[in-house]
């Protein structure tokens, strides 16, 4: 069921690659079974799949929080199992699902935490680190939030701040677990635009979502996890089909090509009848 996606272009080294990655929480039912793919600088991979299909688990394996049962993850050609947590943190950033920190930090203090993998055990962030944090907030157009408390900003702003924290880490790969979760429609699109910007900066982004529209809008790679270990991946045109989406979501849905927009749109059928 596994298909390596983008054809390996010459001798380019993938920014992020998985080879035969398997993971299971219980012995008899593998959640991820022999997943392989390669992503290059600036690629976007959107993961779809029903609840509990292992999207977050795959992200956890990719950033070293979970150890795969078998198989390996490669970042810039180096096997992750042989690199330290700090080395990995400098190259792979992770934005888990929204969670409030236990203490209410001001945004700038929150963002500067992204510098942790670049600081020694006994170092505290100094002027340089705070300048990086401020510059990153500025580049995302949210410099005005710097002195506000994390709890005092909106959900959409919080997600941008979390992305700022990961950018301060200066990773080449960013993993995002449902970055559009709990956001209003406008903010969802805003975050997707931000993902597209990151990709233009040459950052490889892997994100999970429950909205089939999102991979179509991002127009990068799509991966579908079926929850039984199966994984298929390819371009939007290769992967996104009515049958594949019905398989995931088990509802009556249609893919309609809207000429005005020049793209496919995913809509559900009637609720009744």
């Amino acid at each position, binding site marked *: 069921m596994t298909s390596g996606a983008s054809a390996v272009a010459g001798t380019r080294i993938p920014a992020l690659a998985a080879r035969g990655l398997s993971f299971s929480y219980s012995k008899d039912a593998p959640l991820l079974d022999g997943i392989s793919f390669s992503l290059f600088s600036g690629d976007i991979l959107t993961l779809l799949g029903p609840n509990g299909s292992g999207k977050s688990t795959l992200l956890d394996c990719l950033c070293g929080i979970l150890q795969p049962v078998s198989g390996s993850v490669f970042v810039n050609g180096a096997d992750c199992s042989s690199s330290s*947590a700090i080395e990995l*943190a400098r190259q*792979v950033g992770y934005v888990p699902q929204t969670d409030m920190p236990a203490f209410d*930090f*001001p945004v700038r203090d929150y963002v500067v935490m992204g510098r942790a993998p670049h600081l020694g055990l006994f170092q*505290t*962030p100094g002027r340089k680190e705070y300048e990086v944090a401020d510059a990153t907030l500025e580049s995302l157009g949210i410099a005005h939030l710097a002195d506000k*408390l994390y709890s005092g900003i909106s959900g959409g702003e919080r997600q941008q701040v979390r992305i700022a924290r990961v950018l301060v880490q200066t990773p080449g790969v960013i993993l995002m677990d449902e970055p559009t979760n709990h956001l209003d429609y406008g903010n969802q699109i805003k975050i997707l635009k931000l993902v597209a910007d990151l990709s233009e900066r040459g950052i490889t982004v892997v994100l999970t979502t429950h909205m089939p529209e999102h991979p179509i809008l991002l127009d990068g790679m799509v991966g579908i996890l079926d929850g039984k270990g199966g994984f298929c991946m390819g371009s939007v045109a290769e992967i996104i089909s009515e049958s594949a989406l019905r398989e995931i979501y088990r509802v009556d849905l249609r893919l309609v090509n809207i000429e005005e927009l020049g793209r496919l749109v995913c809509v559900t059928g009637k609720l009744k009848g």
Partner: protein
Amino acid sequence: MRTGTAWFSGRDAALYSALLSVVAVLFVASLAIGRYHVPVRETTRILASRIVPLERTWTPQMENVVMRVRLPRLAGALLVGGALALAGAAYQGVFRNPLVSPDLLGVSSGACVGASAAILMHWGALAVQVSAFAMGLVSVAVASSIPGFFRNNTTPMLVLSGVIVSGFMTSLQGLLKYFADPLDELPSIIYWAMGSLGSVKAGEIKIVGLVIAAIMGVLVMIRWRINLLALGDSEARSLGVNVKRLRSVIVLCATLMTAGAVCVSGTIGWIGLVVPHLGRIVAGHDNKRLIPVSILLGAAFTILVDTCARNLTGSEIPLSILTGVIGTPMFVWLLFAQKTTV
């Protein structure tokens, strides 16, 4: 509340020096105040004469009271207060909960059992301290290893085992009190468990002081990393933090420091909970600032409380009574000021 957290070290420096001056003023004032009054001017001169040569304008009696009687006790207050407040702030950071105090894993209840047993055996003052220190550490060691048996190293599991061990130690303490001679041993046990700096000796303060200062140094150096633990385990790990090791180092340091403080003064409640809260209002939640601020506020608060303890009435008032009487209303005010929702 201060939200702007600019990196201007000048602003931090101003905060630290203001607090340092408060500690210094309280320190000198407390040296002067007492049943045998020594004028502040003479107190300062006696202290200064140790560094620069000064003409003796004070009586030998004054010098004796200031240097031999009050100074070791104040040094004890400074150390114990700073240590307990720092340990409290560190524990709160590790357990991601501002309502945690350094007693959480049973160090105080264990120390009480150790001290009570030594008192029952009539082992002498030094043995009481060593026994309290050792049993405090044993309690925390047991509490920290229980989660391992269940292969469940989550924070709630650790908190629960702390509650279990504290409960067990409190019962043992009850048993020891029950067997104690009500005329002689029981009062000593009770007095010890309520905390006092009345019997601090200059010699022991030097040793314990060095140990506590060294551990404080470690915690001050890694203080910013405590912030990372607030993000939660996965997020901290994605930042390259070895969460388990960092947590263990901080808990170990904070516990050793609390046990060290307890063997100087007996158990003193509330400092480890209330002072870091006050610190959070003054400095915010960033441990980069909160940790030094907590040390200084803890020292100031304890000097103040101990000065009250030896001056308010004809006899000494145990410290835990005062920290409770002052600390609890203050805590209500702090919760109100922070608009804390628990």
